[in-house]
């Protein structure tokens, strides 16, 4: 049935996220948190995440361009970004953040800026993909999505 193929599609999408390491098992954990009380908690959390990053990222970019650079502040924000990216399982985003932070620590601001560009890129890619993913999930109906083939 359409539904089944849609679900298969969703499952395939999810699997591809994992394979490409765009998302990691933390995302799966998140999905598994859904229950009848909060069936779409994963989507809620992800939405919350992107809402946050919509603010955080431009601020970060500004702070990185500032002179002089406020390292502690950058560090704090980057940690924050790393924390919530990791919490939803956005592994690629988190890795790029790690790179950025490492470069900053070395004092390589230019390098950090370039790395940050990567962060943005990965973030935007993820956002688009997840939007599609959740859209499909909604289409498929209120079945517990957290039953991926283990």
């Amino acid at each position, binding site marked *: 049935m359409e539904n089944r193929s849609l679900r298969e599609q969703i499952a395939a999408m999810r699997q591809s996220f994992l394979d490409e390491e765009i998302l990691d098992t*933390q995302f*799966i*954990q*998140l999905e*598994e*948190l*859904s*229950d009848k009380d*909060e069936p779409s*908690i994963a989507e*809620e*959390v992800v939405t*919350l*995440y992107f809402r*946050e990053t919509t603010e955080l990222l431009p601020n970060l970019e500004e702070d990185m361009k500032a002179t002089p650079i406020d390292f502690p502040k950058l560090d*704090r924000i980057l*940690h*924050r970004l*790393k*924390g*919530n990216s*990791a*919490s*939803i*399982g956005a592994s690629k985003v*988190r890795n790029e953040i790690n790179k950025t932070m490492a470069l900053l620590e070395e004092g390589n601001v230019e390098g950090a800026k370039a790395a940050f560009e990567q962060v943005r890129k990965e973030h935007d890619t993820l956002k688009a993909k997840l939007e599609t993913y959740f859209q499909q999930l909604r289409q498929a109906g209120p079945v517990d999505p*957290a039953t991926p083939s*283990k």
Partner: protein
Amino acid sequence: MNSSGGKGSMSTASSSAAWKAGDVVPDQFPAGLRVLVVDDDPTCLMILEKMLRTCLYEVTKCNRAETALSMLRENKNGFDIVISDVHMPDMDGFKLLEHIGLEMDLPVIMMSADDGKHVVMKGVTHGACDYLIKPVRIEALKNIWQHVVRKRKNEWKDFEQSGSVEEGDRQPKQSEEADYSSSANEGNWKSSKKRKDDDDEAEERDDTSTLKKPRVVWSVELHQQFVAAVNQLGIDKAVPKKILELMNVPGLTRENVASHLQKYRLYLRRLSGVSQHQSNLNNSFISPQEATFGPLSPLNGLDLQTLAATGQLPAQSLATLQAAGLGRSTAKSGIAMPLVDQRNIFSFENPKLRFGEGQQQHMNNNKQINLLHGIPTTMEPKQLASLHHSAQSIGNMNVQVTSHGVQGSQNNSLLIQMAQPQPRGQILNDSAGSHAPRLPSTMGQPILSNGIAANVSTRNGIPENIRGPGYNPVSQTSSMLNFPMNHTSELPGNSFPLGSTPGISSLTSKGAFQEDLNSDIKGSGGFMPSYDIFNDLNQHKPQNWELQNVGMTFDASQHSNSLQGNLDLAQSVLVQQGFSSGQMNGQNRSAAVVSKAMFSAGDCTEQGNAQNVNHHLNNLLVDNTIRIKSERVADAGPANLFPDHFGQDDLMSALLKQQEGIAPAENEFDFDGYSMDNIPV
């Protein structure tokens, strides 16, 4: 992940109530654990809240540290544990940690995406009982209740614990120990205080849901004032009456001061008398105040201690230090609270002192932790050294034992006296007797008793005593499930022959298990042989609530198939957990157990009766590590309790298979000699 599931049957309300009652361990524990989560990141906060709810905890979330503090202040007994982020805009997480440790003395878990060693160490020094690295997985949260139990246990006994099992592998062992000792310290203080005001404290301890404050809380400030007064008068001339006058604290009685002074004196004596622990002692003395703050440079701490010990340290310096420690001043700069200090402080100061857990942690770190810092102890100083490890374990033991209130308490007293160099043991004995009923509420800590006994005996050469209490109580009360306490990891180090434990476990298993679960247990018993630790644990009466949970939470409809699936999952979890970490990670263990159990279950399914087993196994396999532990408990008595309906041969083979696979894990626990003994045949 089996986080979701039929946990709805748990009644968190009743469990909280039971938990508060403190006299009985609620069956559903740790369900209903009241957790306060503080994180300025809404994404993480939402995830954490959901995860904690899935663990059946009562969650309150908060995105500002100030709000959290005021919530805690308004309702001091309203929470069991706090989880806080490190980086927060309005207040540094470590500051919050200090405040909580000082004012409410609740266990605090720090968390952050920052996994830098220095930050984690900061958590340790500030007294966090654990440090979780984001992304936080639900498995890590499932075990947090252990910190609550541990802390309460420590309230009863004064002994420092040498270490604790951490929830995840990521934490360095050091922090684990620190956590452990910090809780122990708290307990130490309380115990010492108890000695003086046994009845009063006993009553106050009834409420195990929070750290019951004794009538007088020797806060850092108060102690500071006390020391200042003593120094002013001169340690020789310092009499309670004069000290009281100098301190000028309303509500403080001469008796309070007198008892505190006595401890202080002993502490000083110990400082000068015990050379090896001297520095520790000194540190510890000063640490109480400083410890809370954590960030005191070791050097300073030492100097301070020495000075303080000799009464020459001007009160102001101490105050400064303390202030620095608190971070009120900006003295935070790289002052690393001497680990020793913290430990010592703990021992010296009244348990009532609300020191940051950091202190405790320090204690842990310092192997030498003298349980007795400054607290009058009956044992010789030399015993302290040997005892610290054992003490730690004993501490656990004592606590555990006393919790039983039955023979356990008696044994405990024995054990305590033997094991603990300090008179605390006596106190414990006394308190054990009086508080025994309470201990159970603290959640059976017993498991350690076995281990502890082992430690004690090896160290102190008082095997009989130690063993006796360790074993007897365990078997008797079996409420000592220490599974959660992961202390077992500590124990392994002692390589104590735990041979006796099996016997105990069997006893306990018999008594402890509910009938329904018996079969489950038995079944699982057969699965666990390879886990020595488990055997120990098993000996302790598995917490009933665990078993209940097991029965209820798991979806009985899952059968062998699911088992297989679970097995994979468990094993993968096991792997992830870094089984080789050597820590008695509940998760690991449970994973191991699960896989084993599953494995066996799988085999069993072939048999007619296996069905039952599978069910039980499934139940037991529920993600809750605690549950798994209960399985283990069952294992303890495998020899005796091995259910008939389990094809023993099949199970054995399954077991053996499992064991082979899991062998390495066992070794980590150092219960090498133990593993095969309990295999039911």
